[in-house]
C-alpha cells in the first residue's frame, strides 16, 4: 500500500527526514473543454512537509492544486483523468463524498476571502457545517485554538464579533488559514497565499506555515522563489502542463538538473 512507500530524499543536500506519502497523483490530465491544461503529471506529497509548486504563469499549478480537493468539480467545463489518492484512497472514486474530502483537504486561496460575518463565525463556519463540536463551549475552544494556531488570536481576541472583512489583508489571510484549520484537515492547499500581502504579513504567514507543518501536510503554490526556498522541503517545477523537475528544495535551488528549472529560479524566464 501507498502508506508504506517512503519518500526518497535524494542527494546530500536533503535535510528533511523521510516521510510517508500523504497524497499522490499519477498521470493526472486535466481538460478545460477542448484545451488540455495538464499532461500526465506525477507528483508525490510527503506527509507533514511543505511541498512547493513553482513554474511560470499558466503552467497548471493551480489546476493541479485544485485537483487535490476536487475544487475543479465546480468548474463546469473541467474534466480530470488519472489517479489521485489520499492515504491510498482514490479521491475521484464514486464512493468518495466530496464534502468529506474537502474537510480533510482544506484550501486557502490567493486572495483572502473572509465571509461577511463576524471573525468568530468565519472560523466557526466549518465546524458548524460538519457538526464538529459538542456544545457552545467546545465550539469556542475550537475557534480559539484555530485562531491561536494561525497566529491571529492575540490581535483579535477582543473583537471576535466584529466582521472579518474589517481586518487588514494579512490578518484576513490568517483568518482564512484559521478557518481552514478549524475543521482539522489533514492536508492544507495554499494557492499563492501571500500574493496579496505586504512583506511583514508575508513573513507572519510564512512563519505560520513553518509551524503548521508539524501537524499538517501542506502544498503551496508560489511565484516567489525565496518563499519556496524558505518554507518548503520539496519543490516541483511545472512547465506547460508538465512537471519538469521535482526534488528536495535545497537541491532544486542549489543544483537543479533541468535547464528550465535553472533558468526559472534564476529569473531568466517566467
Amino acid at each position, binding site marked *: 500500500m501507498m502508506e508504506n512507500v517512503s519518500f526518497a530524499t535524494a542527494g546530500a543536500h536533503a535535510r528533511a527526514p523521510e516521510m510517508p506519502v500523504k497524497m499522490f497523483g499519477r498521470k493526472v490530465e486535466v481538460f478545460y473543454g477542448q484545451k488540455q491544461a495538464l499532461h500526465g503529471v506525477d507528483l508525490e506529497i510527503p506527509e507533514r512537509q511543505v511541498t512547493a509548486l513553482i513554474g511560470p504563469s499558466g503552467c497548471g499549478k493551480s489546476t493541479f492544486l485544485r485537483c487535490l*480537493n476536487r*475544487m475543479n468539480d*465546480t468548474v463546469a467545463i473541467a474534466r480530470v483523468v488519472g489517479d489521485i489518492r489520499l492515504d491510498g484512497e482514490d479521491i475521484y472514486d464514486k464512493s468518495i463524498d*466530496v*464534502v*468529506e*474530502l*474537502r*474537510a480533510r483537504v*482544506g*484550501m486557502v*486561496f490567493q*486572495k483572502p*476571502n*473572509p*465571509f*461577511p*460575518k463576524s471573525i468568530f463565525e468565519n472560523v466557526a*463556519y*466549518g465546524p*458548524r*457545517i*460538519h457538526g464538529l463540536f459538542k456544545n457552545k463551549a467546545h465550539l469556542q475552544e475550537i475557534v480559539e485554538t484555530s485562531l491561536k494556531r494561525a497566529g491571529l488570536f492575540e490581535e483579535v481576541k477582543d473583537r471576535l464579533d466584529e466582521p472579518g*472583512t474589517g481586518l487588514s489583508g494579512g490578518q484576513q489571510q490568517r483568518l*482564512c488559514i484559521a*478557518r*481552514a484549520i478549524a*475543521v482539522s484537515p489533514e492536508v492544507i492547499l495554499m494557492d499563492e497565499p501571500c500574493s496579496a500581502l505586504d512583506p511583514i504579513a508575508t513573513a507572519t504567514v510564512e512563519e505560520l506555515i513553518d509551524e503548521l507543518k508539524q501537524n499538517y501536510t501542506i502544498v503551496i503554490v508560489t511565484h516567489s522563489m525565496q518563499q519556496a526556498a524558505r518554507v518548503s522541503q520539496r519543490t516541483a517545477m511545472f512547465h506547460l502542463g508538465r512537471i519538469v523537475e521535482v526534488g528536495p528544495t535545497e537541491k532544486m535551488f542549489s543544483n537543479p538538473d533541468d535547464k528550465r528549472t535553472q533558468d526559472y529560479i534564476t529569473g531568466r524566464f517566467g
Partner: protein
Amino acid sequence: MSTSITLLIPLLLGIGGFIVATSRARRFSDVGSGKMHSLPKYHGYLVALSIIVPAYLIIFLWLFFEQSVLRGVIVNALPDALTNGATPAQVSLLISQVQQAASGATFGNPDPAIVEVAGRLREAVVFSRWALPLVIVLVGLATAAVLVSRIAKRFRARNYSEAIMRGLLIFCATLSILATLGILLSLLFEGLQFFSRVSPIEFFFGTRWDPQIAIRPDQIGSSGAFGAIPVFMGTLTIAFTALFVAIPVGIFAAIYMAEFASPHVRGVVKPLIELLAGIPTIVYGFFAVLVISPFIREWLGSIGIAVSPTAAIVPGLVMGVMLIPFISSLSDDAITAVPQSLKDGSLGLGANRAETVTKVLLPAALPGIVGGVLLATTRAIGETMIVVMAAGLTANMTVNPLQGVTTVTVQIVALLTGDTEFDNPKTLAAFGLGLTLFLATLLLNLVAIQIVKRFREQYD
C-alpha cells in the same frame, strides 16, 4: 413655414457650422508652428452646439409665449365697443370667436368686426411662422461667424464645448428633479387645502371612511367621514398578501437561476420571468376578476369559507405574481454579485451547495434582496389598476384577506372620476390620500436605495 421644418433648421445649421469650423480649424493647424490647443473636431462641436442650443431655446420660448402674444393682438384689435365693460369671461368668449373665425370655422353670420380681427390674427400667425425661422437663422449665422472668426491655435474650443455639454447634462438632470418637486408641490398644495378642512387627526386616526357628502340639503347622506385608517389597512392587507406570494417565489426563483440552473435554462427562464413585469396591469386586472376571483370563491366556498367578492386575497395574489420579477431579478443580481471567491471559500471548507447558498450567498446578498423587496412594496401600495378592477369601494376595518377592502388608490380614482369640484372635502380627500401615499412610497424608496447602495459598496 410649418413648425416641423422650423425644428429641423437648427440641426442643419449646426451640421453646416460643424463642417465649416472643422475645416477652418484644420487649415489653422496646418500652418505656422505650435500645436493647436484643441483638435479641429472640438472647434466643430463648439460651433454646432452654440448654434443648436440657443436655437432650440428660442423656439421653445417663442412657441411658449406665442399664444399669449396672439391673444394680446386680438384684444388690441377688437373694437372698444365690444370690449368696454366686458367681463373677462366675455372677453375670452370673443377671443375664441375670433380664433374660430380665423381658422375658417364660422357659423351663421359673424359680426364683421370679428371677421376683420380674424384677418389680423391670420396675418399675425403667418408673420410668426416666418419670423421664427428667420430669427433662428440670423442668430445662428451670427454666432457661427463670431466663433469661426475666433478660431486660433490657442483657442480653447475643447474646454468651451465640454462646458456646454456639461451644462446640458446638468439641465437634463435638474429637469427630472424639478418634475418630482413640481409633483410634490402640487400634491402638497391640494393636500394642505384638504387638511385645512378636515383635521389631520381625524384623517390619520379616524376609523370610519365615508367621503360622500350630500350635495343638496334635501339629499339623505352623511356629512362625510374621513378616517383613513381602514383605507390604508386595505392597501396594506393587499400589499402583504402580494408580498407573501412574491417574496418566497421571487427569492427561490433567484436562487435557482443564480446557483442551480444551467446557463441554457437560465437564458430561457430569466427573460420569461421578466416578461411578467411587462404585462400591462390592466391585463392582470382581467385575470384577477375573470379567473382568480371565481376560482377562489368556489374553492374556499366548497370547504365552507365565505369569501367576499372584493376580498383582498384576489388582487393580492395577482399582484404577487406581478411583483415576482421585481424581487427575483434584484435578488438574482445580488446573489450573482457575491464574488466567486466567497463561494469557493465555502465549498473549499466542505460545504455543499445548499449550505453555501443559505450560509454565505444569502447573507451576503441580503441587503440587495431587502432593497428589492422594498421596491416591490412601493409598487404594491401604489398599484392602481389591479385593485380598481378587483378590490371594492367600501372601506372595512379589517386585515382579513377574505373580506372586502378598498385601497388608497381605488379611493383616489373613485373620488376623482366623474364630475368633480375642487372645493369640497370629498374631492380634496383624494389629494390627502395621494400626498400620504406619495410620502410613504418616497420614504420606502429612499430606504431601499440606501440599502441597495450599501450593498454595492460591500465588495469594493
